[in-house]
Every structure is written in structure tokens, then in C-alpha cells.
């Protein structure tokens, strides 16, 4: 189950554990169902407790970025741990200006 908060039209999702192709399927469905029902202005993905992420996580981030653009909202990423930064920066996601 996802740990989330919704405050001032910001939906914050506290991701945790390992993000790979296996776990990203459920994360995608749960995040999309919440953004579709709440229609937040901003989707904030908090990576503080993420221990591992491979390129499936990049797909997850890019997919949610597209989803939020379609809904007319924004997305941001906070608390990226050091060991996950490398895979994120390799993807070029930082050029979208979503990493805070």
C-alpha cells in the first residue's frame, strides 16, 4: 500500500523499498488511480526511503510525468538518494526540471 498525503492540491507519494519492473507495475496503477481521482495540481514523488531503482523506475517517472501533463498538472521529485541519482541522471530526466 502506498503511503501518501494530499495537502494544498499537492499529492505526495512516499516511495520506499526497491523499484524494479516487478514493483513498478503496482506503483504505476496506485499512483495513477490517485491522480485520476484527486486531480492534484502537483504530484510529488518522494524517494527518501527508496533503497534501489533500475531503469524501470525511469519508465515509471516518465510515465507519471506524461500522466500529470495530460491532467494539466505538474510533477516533482524530491529527496533522491545518492545511489539512485546516477541512474536518474543517465536518463536525462533532470532536463525536465522536475528534480527539486
Amino acid at each position, binding site marked *: 500500500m502506498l503511503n501518501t498525503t494530499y495537502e494544498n492540491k499537492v499529492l505526495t507519494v512516499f516511495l520506499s523499498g526497491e523499484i*524494479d*519492473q516487478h514493483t513498478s507495475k503496482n506503483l504505476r496503477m496506485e499512483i495513477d488511480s490517485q491522480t485520476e481521482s484527486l486531480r492534484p495540481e502537483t504530484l510529488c514523488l518522494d524517494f527518501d526511503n527508496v533503497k534501489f531503482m*533500475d*531503469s*524501470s523506475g525511469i*519508465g515509471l517517472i516518465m510515465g507519471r510525468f*506524461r500522466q500529470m501533463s495530460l491532467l494539466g498538472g505538474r510533477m516533482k521529485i524530491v529527496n533522491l538518494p545518492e*545511489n539512485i541519482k*546516477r541512474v536518474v541522471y*543517465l536518463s536525462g530526466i533532470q532536463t525536465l526540471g522536475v528534480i527539486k
Partner: protein
Amino acid sequence: MNTLNTMEIKFPSKSINEGFARSVVSSFILQLDPTINELTDIKTAVSEAVTNCIVHGYEDNAGIIYIKGEIREDNLIVFKIRDKGKGIPDIKKAMEPLFTTGGEERAGLGFAVMESFMDKVKVSSKEGKGTTVTLYKKIIRTNYEKP
């Protein structure tokens, strides 16, 4: 070049086994006392290779994935990740960053991550027969004593 230690596993191509594969390869290379970054790099590269077997090699159908690990002289780690799936028709194309046949939730970065995080990546594939990805990385910091 002498091989100092080896391991082999095989497991069904279920996505839950991506985490299992990462745990096994981490445990194997811990004897070389890698840095956290080295460990993360290798885990991530292996995760990409195993995901490719599941998503592309077997296209989410049942199959077996084989991993063979070696520790060679000079702290060189070699992992071979193999499937007997459909194979890659055009390896050069498959290795291009952002190219994917996996749909829009896939970033197309699997091989780019492997190449960036490892010292060398070798891919051999035959259509209808399967694919073998070989990953090489030298561990710089080590306390490993020869057995």
C-alpha cells in the same frame, strides 16, 4: 586468466525474481569488499539484464533464466545472464538509448545503464534461440585474499 570463484543459478522468468537475482549477485561479490557504488552499479546492471530476459526474451511467458558469475584474477567480476527466449534481431538497434519495444512505460535505457555502470558489456543473440549478456567490472577497492 585464472578464475578464483564461481556461482551459478537458474530460476523461472517471474518478475519477482528480479530482486532475488540482485540479492544473489550482491552476496557473491561481497567477498571482494566492493564500495557501495560498485555494488549498486553491478546490482543495477544485473537487474536490467534479468528484466530484459523477462520482458523481451520470454515476453512475459514462462522460461528459465541462467546466471553464471565468476571472480577472476585482478578483482575482475564477470556475470553471464542468459535466456532461451526469442533472441534479438538487431543488437545494435536494441542497444541504442531510448529504443524500446516494451511500450511507453519502458524507458529504453536497459543497455545504456549496463554500458554506463559496467566496464564492458557483450551481447550475443540468435533469433529463436536466446540471448546471452556478459557483464564485466573490475572492483577497485578490495580485501579479497586468494583462497
